[in-house]
């Protein structure tokens, strides 16, 4: 019965969506051509080689701040729901020698890769969110290999808070300097250089540290809970 009604509902929704897609005129209708304008102006306005970054941090920087807030609220809510494990709670035993050594060996390389992706976010595909996810994985793999040495939640919250404040602080500096919150600062520089695009790499660094600390803390909390 549930299967049949579910099937009918899904087919109905599918037909509706097909009609919606059919009525879209293909190419450039939903964003109204803003995309082409941004593609033309972004190199002069912001100076990033990766135009997605300039949309994310310069044109819609406020939305990214909102996104960081959503992530922060979710991480806080997970901490609130799961709570702290009791100090005498039983922990999983450490993994074998191979996994522990591999985790230790992998750690510096993942940190370097994460930092590279964050710092080149304005030049190549990648940026704060992607690099932050790799940083979080770098800190989470050792926890999986040896659960007896858990993540220090105080440090991760401190990094997260400082990175979030840095993002807002750069935005406020732009507000006093240029009159717009999160406006790009420090000029554009030469497109394609590592030190270009003004304050955007700094913003991406803040985003990356915040996302990394937040995701690592979130994963560690999910891992620490006893079922």
């Amino acid at each position: 019965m549930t299967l049949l009604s579910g099937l009918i509902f899904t087919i109905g929704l599918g037909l509706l969506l097909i009609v919606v897609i059919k009525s879209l005129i293909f190419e450039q209708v939903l964003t109204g051509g803003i995309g082409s304008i941004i593609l033309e102006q972004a190199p002069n306005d912001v100076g990033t080689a990766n135009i997605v970054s300039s949309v994310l941090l310069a044109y819609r920087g406020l939305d990214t701040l909102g996104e960081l807030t959503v992530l922060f609220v979710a991480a806080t809510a997970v901490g609130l729901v799961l709570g702290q494990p009791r100090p005498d709670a039983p922990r999983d035993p450490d993994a074998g020698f191979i996994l522990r050594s591999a985790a230790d060996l992998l750690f510096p390389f993942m940190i370097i890769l994460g930092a590279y992706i964050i710092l080149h976010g304005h030049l190549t595909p990648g940026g704060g969110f992607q690099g932050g996810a790799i940083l979080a994985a770098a800190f989470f793999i050792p926890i999986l290999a040896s659960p007896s040495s858990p993540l220090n939640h105080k440090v991760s919250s401190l990094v997260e808070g400082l990175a979030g404040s840095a993002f807002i602080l750069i935005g406020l500096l732009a507000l006093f300097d240029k009159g717009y919150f999160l406006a790009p600062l420090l000029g554009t520089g030469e497109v394609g250089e590592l030190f270009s695009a003004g304050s955007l790499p700094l913003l991406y660094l803040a985003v990356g540290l915040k996302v990394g600390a937040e995701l690592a803390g979130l994963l560690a909390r999910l891992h620490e809970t006893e079922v």
Partner: protein
Amino acid sequence: MEETAGIYFFSYSGALGLILLGVFAMVTSRHIIRIILGLMLLEAGVNLFLIIIGYRANAIAPIIVEGQNAAMVDPIPQALVLTAIVIGVAVQALALALVIKTYKAYGTLDTKELAQRIAEESGTHVIDGIPTEEKQV
């Protein structure tokens, strides 16, 4: 032009298929983890749909490379999807945290059993697994 239409057809039907599969899984499953998996499929479908909206024939990724003058795809949907993926991860983590709490409290993740257990505890009447406001006689 004929070639482009083919690309559009396949990519839109892929996105549509993922969305419908996700909705179907969410509607028919009784296990909470499966419902969350359905939600993840749905998210993937919507993200793919947004990416396809920005597609242009014979265009490259919106990254400036010296000596490259080809047309670029629309960067706005890509920035939107980046946001959507991160929010999706946050939502999934929160959902899983709540699932852990539910399992600790009731020892089951079957929605029908959960509804019955909750209804028994709160003293409401149960019809086909759906608790109603009516009090038990």
